[in-house]
């Protein structure tokens, strides 16, 4: 924040004799001084750097987990300093809170000072105008009234006295400056509102399936502290279709050209259904709760029977993309209801399958030109799901797999409609078709609009504050002739050019070709 320097006040030089009040005042002065604000500003920037170096929780949880498994001890130490949660760290909060307190402490007194300034008349002309940075001799026949009128026409604020005119303009600079800083505080408040009263949820939906906006349907749900689970916007939708198109040939073969999901949306229970085409950059908006398409992948469908001949799974299995360029994916199927033993199946899904020279198979294109499923591990035994330790649906932990009985370790790829019989009558796996899944992020952030308004205000205000200069011009009219002097109260650029224009305007009553202040 801009402020007159307070660093050299005498009571700061001798803090020894200060009482509690004195210390508090010293602390407040130091905190709200320009230099402290600058230091805090730079610290704020410096403090955010670790957030770009180490993976952050909530942004890339997977990488944080990776860090823990690669170098657990280092990760533990990093975590102790909140380096995986930089923007939620107490030291980070300390910096920006101090900065904003410093800013407020600086803005308030300046606002009152500015309000006083705005009501004050420009100061009377100094005795010797030729001592001013800008000075010019005017036509001798100029009168005080003429000079005042001409300066007013240049939008100066003018007062006159016996034989002199004082004029000032550029008050908007300080107004802009103050508004800018107030807007920054507003921005912080808006972000805070969003964090407290907003929520974010993530969910994966397969073609044909529905979604209803309740906490229970989310795969991951991150509410603000003040969010009430009942207050979620009660909309729902069905994912009718998902389409992705890719470049078919050339150097960029396989790059996505476009993708879109067709949703049948019901804005609230009982409301008529409407269609919405959900795309990247075009989120679904239901009364300020936004649904974003953030990822997609394949969900092959299976019919799986167990050793007793029962159909234990009939439907789609979302698979994780392992090769984004070709959408080669990995599927994990857990069937805890299979008899006589539970089944665990690992399979690869290849949308466009071709054999490799080494006798393996690979995918060469993200579209489904030749989709296959290759079971590379089918296991019977205890999936370990009943011991209370939560498991990811996309993974069977290695230590559990080790205890299970391998049935098939490498099968030939199955085309749609083909079936693999597990050895020993343990059941069969039929690949019945291909669906796609989309990953959605659903957010509600009541701070969005206030943040936008604050940011817009800050931008406009900073332009005022940077481009306008406070300038004063005086005219003295006496027996010997007339003269003008001027100065700017803030430095930067040269006032000379504008002053020359003002002089011309004073002399001729018009200002040919002179631009107003830059």
């Amino acid at each position, binding site marked *: *924040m*801009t402020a007159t*320097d307070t660093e050299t006040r005498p009571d700061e030089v001798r803090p020894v004799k200060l009482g509690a009040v004195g210390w508090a005042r010293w602390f407040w002065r130091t905190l709200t001084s*320009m*230099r402290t*604000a*600058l230091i805090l*500003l*730079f610290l*704020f*920037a410096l403090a*955010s*750097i670790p*957030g*770009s170096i180490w993976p*952050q929780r909530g*942004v890339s949880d997977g990488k944080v987990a990776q860090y823990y498994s690669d170098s657990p001890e280092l990760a533990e130490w990093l975590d102790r300093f909140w380096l995986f949660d*930089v*923007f939620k760290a107490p030291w980070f909060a300390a910096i920006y809170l101090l900065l904003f307190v410093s800013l407020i402490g600086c803005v308030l007194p300046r606002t009152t000072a500015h309000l006083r300034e705005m009501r004050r008349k420009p100061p009377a002309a100094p005795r010797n105008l030729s001592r001013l*940075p*800008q*000075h*010019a001799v005017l036509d001798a026949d100029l009168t005080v009234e003429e000079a005042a009128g001409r300066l007013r026409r240049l939008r100066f604020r003018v007062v006159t006295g016996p034989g002199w005119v004082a004029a000032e303009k550029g008050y908007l600079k300080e107004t802009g400056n103050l508004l800018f800083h107030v807007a920054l505080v507003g921005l912080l408040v808006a*972000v805070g509102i969003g964090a407290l009263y907003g929520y974010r949820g993530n969910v994966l939906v397969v073609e044909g399936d529905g979604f209803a906006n309740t906490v229970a349907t989310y795969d991951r749900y991150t509410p603000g502290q003040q969010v009430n689970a009942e207050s979620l916007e009660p909309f729902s939708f069905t994912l009718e279709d998902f389409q992705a198109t890719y*470049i078919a040939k*050339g*150097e*960029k073969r396989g*790059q*996505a*050209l*476009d993708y879109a999901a067709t949703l049948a949306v019901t804005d609230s229970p009982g409301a008529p259904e409407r269609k919405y085409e959900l795309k*990247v*950059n075009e*989120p679904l908006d239901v009364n300020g709760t936004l649904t*974003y398409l*953030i990822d997609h992948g394949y969900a092959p469908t299976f019919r799986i029977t167990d050793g007793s001949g029962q159909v234990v799974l009939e439907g789609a299995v979302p698979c994780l993309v392992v090769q984004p360029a070709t959408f080669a994916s990995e599927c994990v199927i857990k069937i805890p209801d299979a008899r006589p033993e539970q089944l665990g199946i690992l399979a690869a899904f290849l949308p466009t399958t071709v054999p490799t020279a080494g006798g393996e198979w690979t995918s060469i294109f993200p579209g489904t030109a030749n989709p296959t499923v290759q079971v590379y591990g089918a296991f019977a035994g205890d999936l370990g799901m009943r011991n209370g330790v939560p498991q990811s649906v996309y993974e069977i932990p290695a230590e559990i797999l080790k205890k299970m009985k391998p049935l098939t370790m490498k099968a030939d790829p199955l085309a749609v409609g083909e079936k693999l019989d597990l050895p020993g009558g343990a059941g069969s796996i039929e690949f019945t078709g291909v669906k796609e899944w989309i990953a959605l*992020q*659903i*957010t509600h*952030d009541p701070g*969005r609009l206030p*943040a*936008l308004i604050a940011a817009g205000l*800050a*931008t406009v205000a*900073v*332009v005022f504050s*940077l481009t306008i200069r406070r300038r004063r011009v005086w005219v003295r009219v006496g027996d010997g002739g007339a003269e003008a002097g001027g100065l700017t109260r*803030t*430095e*930067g*650029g*040269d*006032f*000379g*050019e504008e*002053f*020359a224009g003002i*002089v011309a305007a004073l002399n001729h009553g018009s200002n040919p070709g002179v631009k107003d202040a830059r």
Partner: protein
Amino acid sequence: MPAEVDPGLAALSDQLILATVVLYAIAMIGYALDLAFGRARSASPAKTEERSEAQAAEPALVAAGAAAASAGTGTAAAPAEAGRSGGAGSGAEKAPPSWVMRAGAVATVLAWIGFAVHLGSVLTRGLATGRWPWGNMYEFVVAMCLAAMGAFLLMQLRYPVRFLGASVSAAAGLGLGYAVHSLHVEAGPAMVALNSYWIAIHVSAAIIASGLFIVAGACGVIFLIRHDAADHLPTRQELERVAHRAIVIGFPIWTFAVIAGALWADKAWGRYWGWDPKEIWAFITWIVYAGYLHARATAGWKGKAATAVQLVAFASLLFNLIGVNIFFEGLHSYAELPD
């Protein structure tokens, strides 16, 4: 969005950019000759202050401005030269040989031609792909160099800033060389996420602001390498003034670019701010430039200190462009680096 790319236009764009590099290189040599053999400048601050006061109410300044403007068109180099070196004592100096004056003027002409060819390359790339021509890092760097050169040439029309020609054309030429050599990807459709009108708003603003910051950065670098003694290089005051002016214009544009980015992120990623690496470094850049403006306006930092702050901000701008795209993985990874 059309998937079809016009290969002829794309190839033309690639050739035009090579021609641009050559033109900028020659322009740089011309500007450098002008600097090396032009009038020596005095670094004494007293003298320059005196000068600006003396000039204030006099028509001399207007004359200098007009001369600079005509220098932009490549004629009347001599008065521009006079305007440039300001009130540096006249008697003590020899007039520079006439071919040197021509070197500066020729450089200006070449820089303008280079700029036009450069613009042509950007336009043909856009026409070839049927989209805004800044959808990957190659195109972004090319556009940024165009903005830097454009900012310098426009400034030169109004102010006597020819002394910056050598460093700005060198920076633009090197930037283009780097883009062509290390970043070039075939013209083609952009990533799906970039199919939005926001690219015209957000990225264009980032490009223009970066162009201005490059001009300021060039001033900063000359500031640091120039000696205190009389020198052929521009005075420190001149350098600071030009840098300050470029940043004063660039800073609000940068602010706007970041806000537009946040608006776009709100449409594309489901949040307007999420501390993605690119966001972090945009924020750092913003803060340090804000710090520079504050330091100058109120803490009264001048000279070396202010220039150092400016250069730190510039370094973080460059790091955001190059370092973040290459080292960090984030949502903002549209850079499409060649493999």
